[in-house]
């Protein structure tokens, strides 16, 4: 027993001494450690991480001595954010964190991320600052301070099946006109009519499908009905009962007409995508432009497995949401932020600044088919060569800022529950509105009911 304890102690001490020696060796070289975390589905976080690595290599080639430790995560945002909270409080925090704009107010209020104004508004960064597309800086601003560099735009949109519409007797020019945001024909009423026709003709099983779980779609549909989320005067959240009523009534009508499955919220993701890629759904309204790439990378289709760009070009189209006040493209920004506890904010900013160069961001856009955040990206040949991204840019003309507030997550969850109640027939529209008011009053401080 004594021998075992002695061996264990020697082993423990030896590892301690060796690791301290390693650290000393590192310090001797004068290198600075920068730790970064990135998040996203599929290849997205890898690229967000790779851009940071490339930037680090470029800075090191320029004479710096950065030791970069980048971790990408394909977890869902919930566990990723819990990990960050724990890491932040246990001093194992990263210096750089990639995050969606919707969490920025919460982190900013808690003082967990740094305002970047002194960097991005500095004279030597002016040309970069002005290169970002309108609305991008606003997306990462909370209470007048900028908290991140926007690296990509998640462009929410409607996907439709051209092949099904052709079978309904529409020519390609009819389809183009019907989905042209500027034509008077692009209305929600017309989409519902088309879905009914396609369903009655037995061309599709469902007219519409949306996402499962609480997510961006629930905001998109409220935005489609002109809903507001945050009161600009007080900064408090709003429960916009007028828009919610329309939104709930719309989803109820879709279920009642047999155009949307009543159990949509419990469908498996694979089945949701399979139904659209195989043409069993006319409109996939729960997604974003990046799924065009996803359909080519994952074998969702039972008929074709992974589908090709040509197949999608021929059979599928994208459009903004036909809002009641005109077309709406809800755009959510993803950004690199700096963690407030970082010991090297200047170097960390240098790194995210470099990783946000037009060339590296173009690489991100081209690979993920998410929208660009900088004007100069659109001038690059590689970007211009992508036909699909041109279409993405067209629907980005109708971009509407995604809401931001520290209580947005709670609002999203209650909105999702209410909508599930509506779709499954457990709630009437009136009951759902009552639930939203009572739950918001209980969960969201200072909420305004309108």
């Amino acid at each position, binding site marked *: 027993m004594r021998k075992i304890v002695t061996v264990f102690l020697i082993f423990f001490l030896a590892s301690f001494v060796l690791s301290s020696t390693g650290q000393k060796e590192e310090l001797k070289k004068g290198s600075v450690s920068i730790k970064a975390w990135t998040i996203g589905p599929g290849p997205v976080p890898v690229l967000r991480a790779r851009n940071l690595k490339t930037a680090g290599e470029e800075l090191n080639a320029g004479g710096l001595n950065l030791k970069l430790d980048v971790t990408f995560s394909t977890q869902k945002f919930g566990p990723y954010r819990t990990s960050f909270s724990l890491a932040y409080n246990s001093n194992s925090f990263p210096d750089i964190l990639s995050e969606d704009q919707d969490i920025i107010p919460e982190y900013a209020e808690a003082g967990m991320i740094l305002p970047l104004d002194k960097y991005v508004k500095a004279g030597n960064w002016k040309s970069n600052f002005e290169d970002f597309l309108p609305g991008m800086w606003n997306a990462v601003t909370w209470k007048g301070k900028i908290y991140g560099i926007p690296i990509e735009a998640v462009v929410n949109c409607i996907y439709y099946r051209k092949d099904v519409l052709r079978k309904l007797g529409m020519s390609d020019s009819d389809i183009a006109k019907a989905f042209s945001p500027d034509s008077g024909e692009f209305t929600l009423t017309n989409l519902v009519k088309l879905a009914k026709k396609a369903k009655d003709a037995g061309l599709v099983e469902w007219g519409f499908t949306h996402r499962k779980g609480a997510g961006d779609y629930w905001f998109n549909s409220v935005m489609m009905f002109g809903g507001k989320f945050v009161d600009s005067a007080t900064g408090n959240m709003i429960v916009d009962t007028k828009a919610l009523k329309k939104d709930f009534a719309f989803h109820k009508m879709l279920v009642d007409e047999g155009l949307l499955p009543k159990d949509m919220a*419990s469908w498996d993701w694979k089945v949701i995508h399979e139904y659209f890629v195989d043409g069993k759904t006319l409109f996939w309204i729960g997604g974003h432009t990046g799924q065009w790439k996803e359909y080519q990378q994952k074998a969702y289709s039972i008929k074709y497995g992974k589908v090709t760009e040509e197949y999608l070009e021929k059979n599928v189209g994208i459009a903004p949401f036909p809002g009641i006040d005109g077309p709406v493209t809800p755009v959510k920004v993803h950004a690199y932020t700096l963690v407030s506890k970082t010991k090297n904010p200047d170097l960390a900013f240098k790194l995210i600044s470099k990783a946000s160069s037009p060339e590296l961001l173009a690489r991100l856009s081209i690979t993920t088919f998410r929208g660009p955040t900088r004007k100069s990206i659109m001038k690059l040949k590689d970007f211009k060569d992508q036909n699909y991204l041109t279409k993405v840019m067209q629907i980005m003309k109708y971009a509407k800022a995604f809401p931001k507030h520290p209580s947005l997550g709670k609002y999203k969850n209650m909105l999702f529950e209410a909508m599930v109640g509506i779709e499954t027939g457990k709630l009437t529209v009136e009951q759902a509105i009552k639930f939203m008011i009572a739950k918001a009053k209980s969960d969201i401080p200072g909420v305004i009911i309108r």
Partner: protein
Amino acid sequence: MKRIIPYFFILPLLLLIFLFYIIPAISTVYISATDMGRSLKGNFVGIKNFTRIFSVEDPVIGRVLLNTLVYLSGALIITIIGGLILAIATTTLTNRWGSFFRIIWFLPRATPPVVWAFLWIWAFDPSRYGLLNMIFNQIGLQGRSWLTLYPMAIVILANGILGIPYTMTILSAALSNIPLEILEAAKIDGASGWKTAVKIKIPLVWWPLSFLIIWYTLSFLTSFQYILMITGGGPFYASTPLALYTYNKAFQNMELGYGSALALVLIALSVVIILAFRKLLGVKREA
């Protein structure tokens, strides 16, 4: 020295209990009196989180408490009655066949939780790929949205069935210890199988049966992982018991203060139910 050695061996365990039970328990009480959120920093709010619960300001609380009672009752009945029936049945068989069926019935317990949950999800999947819908389609019936129509029944079944193997094993062992002469005497007196079970076997295994009832009451009150995986607590809170609601509040909404208050209410509820059961079941320490 000899006197110290036992404490030396106990110390690591005490340390672990202190670290992973006492400290978290005290922390939960403290956090429940704050508005702690994602930053893990909170301001003192006194009993505000509790008033939010007891004044039913949160519109879901009533529904969640009712769900908790329905879920607990349903799952407990399946686990205890199912386990008891199987224990009696397998102990009346020959040793070989009794063991064989016990092994078969133990398989759910040996299945990893995620696999078990996925089996249920697959069985009740609303699409044509769901097992039940496949069978329905084969016999010419229309598939159903099982998880939407019967969420509470499904989570009760999934959890209740999972409790059967353990109950069966414990009760089988207890039943095997009943002296044979008692059972033979009953037989000679003309007692039927039913009467023997009700009047002799169950009273003789009352202590382990009571233990299992209390054990599973605690287990069903506090566990939620299968519900989370199978229905997510929906649709519209239809299958959300207090434990899952607590988890969602604390870790999905990151309302750690309110979540801790809910956790303390859950603990209080567990204590009340356990004390009631002790009284009802007549569980007393033998002198």
